[in-house]
């Protein structure tokens, strides 16, 4: 028994020792913040991505593997605004990791750093799965990504002060490249202004807002409520009266409803990557926006 305990203690010490000298562990709730952490942290960070682009970020299971990864995280970057309300609280509560509790430098909620759209005036579950803090899908406006990037750089410097200069340099480099890219995207997206879009869920609101496009209706009758046949038929009738330019969904949405609607109305259907990994082309944050704009452009012609 004693030797067994001794071995266990030794293993624990070894694990702690290894952890102390390894790269900074970043737990990213969603792919976009994993990609951002990789851009900003380089080889000084080891990034764990808790969900992928084909998963609905509202509906991730609080799986044991996620709890285990949260346990060893030095920095958790999540979206906040209740996007991860169905799973993140369980991870934070059961992981027993003081470093990443909200309020600590090791916890960053991206949506808190930007101006949110669609903050509900009326909080009532009769309105569907609404978010009291506003629409949480903030990363599809690249200006928001730039703001979050600044904060991530700050946190990396705070937590890993020894490499502060490294993070500073990487952050500056990223911001410069990102600003150039934004100018490029805005030029490319200029002719999308005013386009009317029917979107599956309110997941592209920030993108449409940034590009000056209008979301005229949603396939979901209310946020998070799957569309019924009756609702879809109603949409077809409404689209006859007030036509839109395209139907849109993101990679993780069920394809059936938007495909049916596009077919019935003859409108072009665009499937956006939504986040890194949502399409084969969206490999990082830059190509995410490149691909998003390319797909929107293509549907316009």
């Amino acid at each position, binding site marked *: 028994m004693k030797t067994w305990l001794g071995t266990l203690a030794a293993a624990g010490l070894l*694990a702690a020792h290894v952890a102390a000298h390894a790269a900074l562990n970043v737990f990213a709730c969603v792919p976009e913040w994993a990609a951002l952490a990789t851009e900003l942290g380089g080889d000084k960070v080891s990034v764990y991505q808790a969900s992928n682009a084909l998963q609905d970020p509202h509906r991730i299971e609080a799986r044991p593997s996620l709890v285990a990864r949260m346990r060893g995280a030095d920095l958790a970057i999540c979206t906040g605004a209740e996007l991860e309300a169905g799973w993140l609280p369980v991870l934070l509560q059961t992981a027993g990791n003081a470093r990443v509790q909200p309020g600590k430098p090791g916890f960053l909620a991206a949506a808190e750093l930007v101006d949110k759209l669609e903050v509900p005036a009326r909080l009532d579950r009769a309105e569907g799965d609404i978010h009291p803090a506003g629409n949480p899908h903030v990363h599809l406006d690249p200006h928001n990504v730039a703001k979050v990037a600044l904060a991530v750089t700050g946190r990396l410097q705070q937590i890993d002060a020894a490499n502060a200069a490294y993070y500073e340099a990487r952050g500056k480099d990223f911001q410069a490249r990102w600003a150039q890219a934004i100018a490029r995207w805005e030029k490319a997206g200029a002719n999308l202004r005013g386009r009317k879009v029917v979107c599956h869920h309110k997941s592209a609101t920030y993108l449409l807002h940034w590009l000056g496009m209008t979301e005229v209706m949603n396939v979901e009758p209310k946020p998070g409520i799957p569309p019924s046949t009756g609702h879809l038929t109603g949409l077809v009738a409404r689209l006859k009266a007030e036509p839109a330019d395209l139907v849109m969904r993101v990679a993780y949405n069920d394809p059936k409803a938007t495909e049916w609607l596009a077919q019935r109305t003859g409108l072009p259907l665009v499937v956006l990557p939504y986040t890194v990994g949502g399409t084969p082309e969206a490999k990082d944050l830059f190509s995410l926006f490149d691909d998003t704009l390319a797909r929107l452009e293509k549907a316009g012609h």
Partner: protein
Amino acid sequence: MLRTNFVAAAMAAAYALPAVAFAAEDADIRAIREEIKSLKEGYESRIRQLENRLQAAEKAPAPAAAAPAASSAFNPAISLILGGQYSHLQRDPETWRIGGFVPGGDEIGPGNRSFNLGESELTVSASIDPYFSGYFVLAATPENEVEVEEAYVMNSGALPGLSIKAGRMLSGFGYLNEIHAHAWDFVDAPLVHQAFLGGQLKEDGVQARWLAPVPVFAEVGVEAGRGANFPGTGRNSNGLNSTMVFAHLGDDIGASHSYRIGASYRATRAQDRAYVDTDSPGNEVTNAFTGDSRMWGVDFVWKWAPNGNPVERNFKFQAEYMQRREDGRLAFDTAGANLSDGYRSRQSGWYVQGAYQFMPRWRAGLRYDALDSGKVDIGLVDNGALGAGDFPLLAANDPRRATAMVDYSPSEFSRLRLQFSRDEARFDEGDNQVFLQYVMSLGAHGAHKF
């Protein structure tokens, strides 16, 4: 500013003096034009940005007033679970017993016929200070009684990997016991929980869990408490009246599969744990057990969702096996003859169940329950003082139950369920049971465990 002046000058030059322009070299003109074009584009893009920002400013709501200073801002999260069912039971529920097993408390069985209000659960939770958080669940029963279902405080992550709870909590034995009934996949608890854990075991005590700092989920825990609930009883003694250890291991297999396996062992004691049986002449008698009750179990849960996205389709499989050994003395007819001698039993049970969401909102599930009354040695029968017919409830039996359900969830806060069970828990006769249930939650709804 200097740049703007230059541009103005250049523009003036380009437009006002065409003669000069004609005279100038083509290359110069091209260069100037290029520059004007790029400046124009630059301004256009900046104007566009400004327009966007203006639009955003117009659309964005007025900045939220600073958080209300009123004390109500510190109000805890409150949620309420409302549930109820319509039950159609072929046999009189008064006659329901798990044949071969000592009855596990009052909260087991199929319930009443016709309409039944379920327990309405009020949950209140919040951080207490930077070090502790608190959690409280009050259950109002259909009999108009109020029960403290759970009430515990726990540390807020300040100890590495260590979570400590103190108070009344759902015991960590196995998998299902820790999950609130409103989140179960079937209307009722598995037979093995009804036989060994009184339906759902609650413990007044302390629970500590430690999560190992490794990339897979590896957790060990201990629990100790008063052990007042079935299979233990409240005893007038100091110290730990029940102790438990458990371990869990879990991980993902690819993006689509995840699992958790667990093992638990719990030891407690019962003092005059009474139950009602009939003696051989047919009189109702009260018998009582005093002694050790030890139990171990293994549990397994596996979840599948294509690419880990459970929204469209997902599947959940779970299974648990438990074995209980009781060793002590059994008193016969405590109000009358009050004979007492040794008692020893080794009994076991298991269930397997699966729930498949085949399209959004709709799930179908199957469950199979089995118990084995195992080996029961009753001293009073062995020494000839009484006959086996004086303990009819402890006769050998292998209760079975097969259950099918389909449920519909209009949203993640509401669920309607239809369930059919063929219940063969009684000794001789089967019972067909139909339940139509609703479970709804309102207010703050906490995240669900795996």
